[in-house]
């Protein structure tokens, strides 16, 4: 409280906000963020090396093993803990006997890939809409605000179903899901970008740039976008795990990724009736999903505080996202 004020008065110059060094220093200083970064790196590695890992195990995600499940009792995996064995590290899927480890690592690809693509799309749309709304006149701003309202109020489910209906079935489903999530989830970023743009627009250095003779696009490029990078990155790193959850939710509801492509949400959707008969089948993707999202969230928090040590209270974000998937 008084400290900041006094320190400032005392001439204590704050560490500069620019430059990469303090960012990395601050990020490294947070042990939780470091651990999270390692976990995330590991997950990305798993996703990238999925076929390799499954190969090491000697399994693939699609082969049926009818002999590994007890057909008479509804297809429960034979053996304890869902059939965990030297051949099947995480056991096998009920009914089909497909190898769970192979499916889970392949699922990582889909889950992370879809979320990454969706996040990128959200950032692009969000920044675009936010910038145009922030820079445009009142009419443009109002129109875009209304469009944003519509998007916010539209259930993801309906969009997903609509899109599934319109897009030919041959179209790769993960791409489609990424596009859908991207199309419905950009309002947060656009709101932030718009607000920041409006705030920045009134700053004197932007006025000065205008007086220098630059046009709108040049001003956006030179004065606004660099300043928007920090809040956008901060928001995006928290959107990423949220998007993983949205993908899982859509798949869970049966409008997302379709078998045989494994994704964690889709595995959960298959597993949800098995909570009594084969709990490991449910727990494995659930835990992975949890760990991934947690690691990404912690990392996102770290990045956020490292980008702007005082951001915590300024950017109240990551709050409504998850429930949006729920609505």
């Amino acid at each position, binding site marked *: 409280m008084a400290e900041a004020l006094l320190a400032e008065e005392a001439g204590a110059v704050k560490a500069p906000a620019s430059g990469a060094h303090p960012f990395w220093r601050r990020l490294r200083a947070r042990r939780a963020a470091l651990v999270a970064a390692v976990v995330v790196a590991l997950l990305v590695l798993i996703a990238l090396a999925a076929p390799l890992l499954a190969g090491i195990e000697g399994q693939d995600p699609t082969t049926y093993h009818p002999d590994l499940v007890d057909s008479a009792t509804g297809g429960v995996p034979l053996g304890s803990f869902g059939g965990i064995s030297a051949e099947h590290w995480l056991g096998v899927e009920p009914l089909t006997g497909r190898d769970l480890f192979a499916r889970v690592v392949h699922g990582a690809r889909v889950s992370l890939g879809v979320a990454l693509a969706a996040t990128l799309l959200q950032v692009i749309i969000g920044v675009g809409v936010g910038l145009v709304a922030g820079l445009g006149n009142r009419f443009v701003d109002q129109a875009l605000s209304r469009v944003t309202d519509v998007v916010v109020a539209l259930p993801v*489910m309906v969009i997903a179903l609509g899109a599934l*209906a319109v897009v030919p079935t041959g179209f790769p489903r993960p791409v489609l899901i990424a596009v859908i999530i991207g199309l419905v989830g950009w309002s947060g970023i656009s709101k932030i970008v718009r607000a920041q743009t409006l705030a920045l627009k009134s700053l004197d250095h932007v006025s000065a740039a205008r007086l220098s003779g630059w046009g709108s696009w040049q001003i956006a490029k030179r004065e606004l976008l660099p300043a928007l990078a920090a809040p956008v990155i901060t928001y995006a790193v928290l959107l990423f795990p949220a998007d993983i959850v949205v993908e899982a*939710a859509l798949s*869970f509801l049966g409008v997302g990724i379709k078998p045989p492509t494994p994704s964690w949400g889709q595995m*959960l959707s298959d597993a949800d009736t098995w909570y009594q008969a084969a709990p490991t089948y449910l727990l494995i993707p659930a835990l992975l999903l949890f760990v991934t999202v947690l690691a990404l969230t912690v990392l996102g928090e770290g990045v956020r505080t490292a980008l702007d040590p005082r951001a915590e209270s300024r950017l109240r974000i990551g709050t*409504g996202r998850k*429930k949006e998937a729920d609505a």
Partner: protein
Amino acid sequence: MKWFLLRRLGGALFVLLALSIVVYAAFYVAPGNVAQIACGPRCSPAQVAQVSGQLHLGDPLYMQYAHFLQGLFVGRDYSTGTGVLHCQAPCLGLSYQSDQQVTELILAKLPATASLAVGAFVLWMLLGVGTGLLSVWRRGRLTERILTGITLAGMATPVFVIGLLLIIILVTALQILPFPDYVPLTENPEQWAWNLLLPWISLALVSAAPYARMTRASMLETLAEDHVRTFRAYGVSERALVGRHALRGALAPVIALGALDIGSMFGGAVLTESLFGIPGVGRELVDAVKHVDLPVVVGLVLVTGFFVVLANAVADILQAMADRRVVLA
């Protein structure tokens, strides 16, 4: 204030109409022979054609939409064969699937959703604000770090994962709670609460996290504000500063977020309702979408959209009222 409300209302109307157009358009192009579905798979082509005519499915999109608007604002008549069924404005039409009036259908589904939303809301507010308050009280200590960790974990968990885990633990392993079986409040309040406890807890656990974080951040922010310094300089104790001034300052954005969340929750907690089989609007939406039951989908989207838009407006008003510098104009 009056103008602000009127403008918000206008905006909301626009949003809702735009929503209905989007849904109409999406379903117009969607596959699924609606008349065939409504008539039954073994209907003859002639019968399908009759049904199609009855549902105005042969009309161009804009005519269908016009009929919809007519029903919405004036009401519509439907033939029952022996007589006429007048569907009063706002008439959202009849379900293709069950012939039931969509308005009635949605009204029938709302209590379950409202029960879920309100109960969960109370729980997560208590949990969230309490946790936030505690972590401010204990700031800088281990308690705060642990609480921060827990809230992060809460944010990271999708509701269906938490829900499934709770089912495994509380229903299967410990057998403390029943698998939820919605009982209306009017029928048996005790059973109502008992059966909704699990979904409430699940929702509260995942929803409380943002509140805890926001309460904490917002209180810390308030504690750093000048007026807190004033009261400190006048000998007011830390406890009173946190409890009276910081909490009051932090509450506004928290309540605004709460309004937003409960609004979208009223719009149907699709995942929670699907997971726990609660017969609310969210599950109805999933069903209707899967059955291409356009009137029901449009009706539900309008109702849920209405709640979301309403919640947004309420949240804005609360925010603006909280931020006393902003004048509602």
